[in-house]
């Protein structure tokens, strides 16, 4: 009992660590002055500026489209890949290759893809960012799903196969439900990473309007403006609402048959 109490120390420390800067961002977004360090009184003016900022709005829409598109591709491919790697091959080489997109420095991936797209003569745009993001997101999905698969009970799958079910049937009826939490976590991770990614997006977006991280990058580079703080606060609010709205969905996802429970 005492020991588990002790565990709560790092637990709470993690959350304080994660939310301290966030709290600062939110508080400073209501700053009436321009300073990044001193609070000079309450004001909503930065939210007003933000509302009038077309680049930010377009960027947000583009980012959401890219994240949604790449998450779908990455979740499907990544899940299949994870099952294939865990159940149908023992190749360490393939294992490593599948993880590689998560491991490559983003500059290398970005420039490599830029050269590649140039070679196949494709015009760049949001869709080329979707394809690029799906690549590294897939690696993350596969890795998370594999964590769930590793050491999980294979007896059900074996029983299913022994009873003559094909691999696809076994996958749909047995494996997939067992994996659901892993897949949800993987998809969440994929979506999150895509929302945030800007190096690869920068290189592969061509002449389309930029995604939000690219917009933010140019804002941040040229000094703090409390408009960025306001943006951070709004992003938080939006994602918070999205999470609460999506909670029912998550609940459905969580109601998986648990082998051990």
């Amino acid at each position, binding site marked *: 009992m005492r020991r588990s109490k002790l565990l709560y120390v790092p637990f709470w420390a993690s959350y304080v660590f994660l939310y301290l800067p966030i709290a600062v961002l939110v508080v400073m977004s209501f700053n009436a002055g321009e300073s990044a360090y001193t609070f000079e009184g309450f004001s909503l003016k930065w939210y007003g500026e933000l509302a009038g900022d077309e680049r930010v709005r377009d960027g947000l829409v583009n980012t959401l489209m890219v994240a949604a598109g790449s998450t779908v591709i990455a979740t499907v491919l990544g899940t299949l890949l994870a099952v294939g790697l865990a159940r149908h091959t023992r190749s360490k080489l393939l294992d490593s290759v599948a993880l590689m997109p998560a491991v490559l420095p983003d500059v290398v991936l970005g420039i490599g893809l830029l050269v590649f797209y140039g*070679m196949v003569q494709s015009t760049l745009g949001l869709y080329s960012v979707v394809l690029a993001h799906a690549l590294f997101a897939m690696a993350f999905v596969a890795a998370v799903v594999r964590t769930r698969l590793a050491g999980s009970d294979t007896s059900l799958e074996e029983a299913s196969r022994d009873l003559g079910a094909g691999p696809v049937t076994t996958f749909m009826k047995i494996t997939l439900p067992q994996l659901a939490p892993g897949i949800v976590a993987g998809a969440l991770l994929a979506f999150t990473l895509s929302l945030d990614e800007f190096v690869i997006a920068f290189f592969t977006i061509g002449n389309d309007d930029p995604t939000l991280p690219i917009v933010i990058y140019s804002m941040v580079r040229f000094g703090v403006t409390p408009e960025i703080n306001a943006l951070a606060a709004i992003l938080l609010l939006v994602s918070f609402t999205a999470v609460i709205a999506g909670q029912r969905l998550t609940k459905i996802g969580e109601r998986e048959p648990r082998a051990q429970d």
Partner: protein
Amino acid sequence: MSRTRFTRRLPATMAVVGLALAVAACGGESSSGSNSTTVAAEQLKPNADLSKQSLAVTVWDGYLPEELAQRVKEKLKVQDIKIQLHETNETAMAKLTASGDSGIDVAFVSGQYAQALNEQGLLEPIHPELIPNLANLYPEATQLSYDKGNKYSVPYTWGTTGICYRSDLVKTPPTSWNDILKPPAWAEKKVTMMTTERWLALPAIKALGYSVNTDKDDEIEKVKELLMAQKPHLLTYDDTTFGDRLLSGEALMVEAWDGWCPTTDKSGNIKFVVPKEGSDLWVDTMVIMKSSKNKEAAHALINYILDPEVHSWAAENINYKVPNKAAMDRVKIAEGSLLGISPAELLNGESIIDLGEASTKYTRLSADVQAK
């Protein structure tokens, strides 16, 4: 079972990779084949129908008036114009050089980068007959060492590099590069330098009396020693936010481009000085990509920007001197503004040019200085 299948498939994977390598090599060969600086200029039609051409422009954030796109559309009757932003010369270069056709028609880059693009055969020569407003430029603006006679680039803004400082907080106003290279005790950790390699080296180069375009190893070695000795006394390296740092008092003296030194701040406490050892002359230019399919519209855009009313926007709004006499004549120069520096004074500065192979020495230098 399945394992052997996939190990057997390995050679196939290798073959794909090998193929890609081969394609890469060939693709590169052909592109380097066309890599020459004197390709016969394409015939451009002065009366081309611009409504069939649309433009993609890449430029630094805040460097053009916001409503420019709208006005260009109305005035030049081009089909469409898209303004993309880049953060630095470097990222613009990566985009412009990575694939054969970046889709960009007009790019804004600094002089030595325009030179490098041209050396790689990526720029369309400027057709002066399509840009009558070139006549608005100062005569000095056609004599810039990276591109004498504006053969492939048109200057948009120009200026110099110096020390920007808080006159109310410094004990003695800086006059020499040594004042930031060997900062006095009161400026300990209150000094910033730029990160972009040529400008990182500039103060030390000038303090030692060398050329900004030196490629001599012994001189670069001396520069390195000076910069290494300076590093422990620096607050940070900073290319973009040094102005804010001065305003907040976090820094007292910073290496700065004149246009970025907030001398017009209402406090009146921010001053700029070109150190006595001399400095550079930097020019930001407009270039037209050879791969552009809208070259007539691209020329028309540059001509439009050189219009005194349009061009003076940069001087009036972002405090950059423009090399356009007709435009500068329209500008009221405020007290303390750096816009008063004359073209003749600017030309005292030395232009940074791309040094070809030797330019990697500066990358090496900055890595050496920044890694401890």
